C-alpha cells in the first residue's frame, strides 16, 4: 500500500515539474515574441520605440516608490497621499520630462519587489532608497547618484549597543528583505542573527515589539523612524556608503540620459536643494 502512495505522489511531483517547467520555458518564448512584436511596431513609426518615447506618448510617468518609509515615501493615513524626498524627486522628474508634475503615477514597491516590477515593465523608474551596487547593475541601469546615505543602526534609547562593534554573537539585527543592508551587516558583523522583514514598517514594528536588539538600514531611513518615534535613536557612525540611484530598465539609455539631465537641471536650479532641505532638514553637501 505504502508503495502505491509513494509511486502516486512521486508521479504527481514529476508531472508538476514538467507542467511548471513548461510554464517557465514558455515565459522566455513569450518574452522574445513580445520584443519581436515591439520591433515590428516600431518599424511603422520608423524610429526605435524606446521607453522614453513610450512615456511621452502615454503622457504619464509610472514610478515605484516606497509607501512605508518616512522622509522618503510614506503613505499618510490622514490624506491618503504618499509623501517624501523620493516622491518629490519623482514629481520634479515628471515636470522635467513631461512638463507637468501631476503626470506621475506612484506605485508601491518594497526592496523585495522593486526589481521584478521594473523588469516586468510595471514601472518606468524606481526611486525608492535604492543603493547603486555592482550586483544590481547587472539587473538594471542606474542614474547618477541623487542621494548619499550610509548604513547605520537604530536602537531603543538606552540600549547597550552604541556602534557596530557592540554587535556580538546572538544580537538580533532586524533588516528588510532584498536590501543591501542585509549583505553588509552579515559581512561586518558575521556573528549577528539577522531577521528579515518584507518592509520597513514591519521591521520597525518588530523592533518596537522587542523582536530584535537593533534595526539596520541606511541612516536617512533610520532618521525618519526616529522622527516617528522619539524613543529610538541612531547610534554610531555610518559603516558603509550607500549612494542612491534611480533605477531604469536595462538598455533604456535614452531614459537614463533624460533622467540625468533632469537631475543636473534640478541641482543647478536649486530645486534639488529645496527638496533636500524640506525633508532632510539641512543643505545637501556636495
Amino acid at each position, binding site marked *: *500500500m505504502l508503495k502505491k502512495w509513494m509511486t502516486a505522489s512521486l508521479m504527481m511531483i514529476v508531472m508538476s515539474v514538467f507542467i511548471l517547467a513548461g510554464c517557465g520555458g514558455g515565459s522566455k518564448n513569450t518574452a522574445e515574441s513580445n520584443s519581436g512584436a515591439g520591433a515590428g511596431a516600431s518599424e511603422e513609426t520608423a524610429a526605435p520605440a524606446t521607453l522614453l518615447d513610450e512615456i511621452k506618448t502615454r503622457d504619464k510617468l509610472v514610478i515605484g516608490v516606497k509607501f512605508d518609509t518616512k522622509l522618503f515615501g510614506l503613505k499618510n493615513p490622514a490624506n491618503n497621499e504618499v509623501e517624501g524626498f523620493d516622491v518629490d524627486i519623482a514629481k520634479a522628474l515628471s515636470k522635467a520630462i513631461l512638463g507637468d508634475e501631476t503626470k506621475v503615477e506612484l506605485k508601491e514597491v518594497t526592496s523585495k519587489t522593486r526589481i521584478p516590477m521594473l523588469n516586468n515593465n510595471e514601472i518606468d523608474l524606481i526611486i525608492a532608497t535604492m543603493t547603486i551596487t555592482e550586483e544590481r547593475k547587472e539587473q538594471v541601469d542606474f542614474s547618477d547618484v541623487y542621494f548619499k546615505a550610509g548604513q547605520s543602526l537604530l536602537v531603543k534609547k538606552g540600549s547597550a549597543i552604541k556602534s557596530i562593534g557592540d554587535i556580538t554573537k546572538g544580537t538580533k539585527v532586524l533588516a528588510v528583505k532584498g536590501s543591501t543592508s542585509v549583505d553588509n551587516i552579515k559581512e561586518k558583523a558575521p556573528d549577528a542573527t539577522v531577521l528579515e522583514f518584507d518592509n520597513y514598517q514591519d521591521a520597525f514594528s518588530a523592533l518596537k*515589539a522587542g523582536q530584535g536588539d537593533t534595526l539596520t538600514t541606511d541612516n536617512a531611513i533610520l532618521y525618519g523612524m526616529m522622527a516617528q518615534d522619539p524613543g529610538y535613536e541612531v547610534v554610531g557612525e555610518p559603516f558603509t556608503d550607500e549612494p542612491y540611484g534611480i533605477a531604469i530598465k536595462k538598455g533604456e539609455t535614452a531614459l537614463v540620459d533624460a533622467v540625468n539631465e533632469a537631475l543636473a537641471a534640478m541641482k543647478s536650479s536649486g530645486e534639488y536643494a529645496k527638496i533636500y532641505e524640506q525633508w532632510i532638514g539641512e543643505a545637501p553637501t556636495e
Partner: protein
Amino acid sequence: MPDFSILIEYFDVYMEGFINTIYSSIIALIGSFVLGTLIAIFRISSIKPLRWAGTVYVEFIRNIPLLLVVFVFFYGLPSLGITLSGFVCGTIGLTVYTATFIAEAIRAGIMSVPKGQTEAAQSSGLTYVQTMRYVVLPQALKIVIPPLSNQFINLVKNTSVLGVIAGLDLMYFGDQVASKTYATFDTYIFVALFYLVMTLPLSYMALHLERRLAKNG
C-alpha cells in the same frame, strides 16, 4: 525549463527552510491536537461555563484570519512583557488557530456516538473517563480522522505565514533566494516543489485513509 542551478546553489538555504517548516508543522500538529481535544471536551461538557468558554473560543478564532492571530502573538504579546521569536509565535498562532477546526471535528465525532451507549457504559459502572476512553473515543476516531488529515495538510500549507514574521520557514528563505538571484519565477517554482513534496503524499494518504475507513463502515 527553470534554472536548476538556483536549486543547486541555494539547496542548503532551501533545506533550512524546509526543515523548519516540517518542525513547525509537527509541533503545531501535536499542540493543536491536544488543545483541540481539550476544547472539544469543554464544548460537550455538562458544566455550563466550560461549554461557554469552548464555544466562544471556537467561534471567535475560526472567524478571524490566521495572519491576524499570528500578528497578535508577534507584535501584540510583547506589550504584555512576553517576547517570543517569529518561529515560536508562528507555531503558537498555528496551534491556536488549527485547534478550533480540530475541536469541531472531534466534537462532531463524539456527537456521532449514540447517547444510549454512553448511558449504558456508565450504568454498567464505567467512570466518565473510562467511558470516553473505551467506548466513545474509539468510535469517534473513525469519523474524526478524514477531517483531521485534511487539517494537517492545511497546517503544512499555513506554515507559510511564518515567512511574514521572520519565522525562518521555507517561504522566508525562498524570499531570501529570490532577492539574491533576482529570478522570481524560478525561485518560487522550487519553493512550490518543496511544498508539494510535503503536501502531495499527505493528500494521498488522507484520501486512502478516508476510503479505507469508508469501506470498513
